[in-house]
């Protein structure tokens, strides 16, 4: 509190209380307060020397709102990160979540070996084998048999593997 104002308050009260005492009026009646601290706090508050303290409940409530807001922000950030993560996972070119339930096995009987293998490899089957030619084969051989035969088949949880038997035309 500035000294000048304190001095002014003290002088004013001193004179008034002396006069009140002469009239037989008690100090409490004049000040309206029996607690000097409370009186000083009121006086300083009304003079604008100190800001009035906020009720503690209100302060607690503000903190509660801050905590709730922080939690919501963190939760929203977590959700956003989850969405970005799952988005990048599904857009990746190498991940095939589930293979098609149906696959069309081409009929390559009578086809030259190399062309038949290419055709089968690009048909969507899971794998292929050339039977009876473990040490390699030449493209002039032809397919004389295949299993399964050329048709649309349904996957039953097992990989679709095409076996080709080669021979001379």
């Amino acid at each position: 509190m500035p000294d000048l104002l304190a001095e002014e308050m003290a002088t004013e009260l001193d004179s008034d209380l002396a006069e009140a005492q002469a009239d037989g009026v008690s100090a409490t009646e004049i000040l309206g307060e029996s607690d000097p601290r409370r009186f000083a706090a009121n006086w300083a508050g009304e003079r604008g020397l100190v800001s009035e303290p906020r009720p503690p409940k209100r302060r607690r409530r503000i903190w509660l709102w801050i905590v709730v807001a922080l939690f919501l922000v963190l939760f929203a950030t977590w959700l956003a990160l989850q969405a970005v993560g799952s988005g990048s996972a599904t857009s990746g070119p190498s991940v095939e979540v589930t293979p098609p339930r149906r696959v069309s096995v081409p009929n390559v009987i009578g086809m030259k070996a190399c062309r038949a293998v290419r055709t089968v490899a690009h048909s969507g089957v899971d794998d292929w084998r050339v039977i009876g030619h473990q040490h390699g084969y030449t493209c002039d051989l032809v397919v004389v048999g295949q299993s399964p035969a050329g048709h649309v088949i349904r996957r039953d949880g097992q990989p679709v593997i095409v076996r080709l038997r080669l021979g001379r035309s």
Partner: protein
Amino acid sequence: MRRMASESRRSQMLRGVLDLCLLAVVVDEPAYGYEMTRRLRERGLSTVGEGSIYPLLGRLEREGLVATHREASDGGPPRKYYSASPSGRRALAEGVRAWRDVRGEVDSVLATIEAEVA
């Protein structure tokens, strides 16, 4: 217990209009603090309770509703005199109008109630 509650209610009601009462006692003639208390007593307001006039005078001065000056006193230090400023007079007129409206409305509601004293 009941008396304390009654005094508390009186004090709360008075707090809303005590500034008007202070302006009213200095609107015609300046007065220093204790003299204002004396004028309030003369007009029937004997105790101001928790709402001491001194903090309130500080607010009125800060808001420019009262003007102050110092005058020499008999034998003591100069005394601080308060008088209603032009804006204080306007505030007093508006406040009195608002008080009469509220008083009338509350009286209308409470008029039919008979106060019972146990």
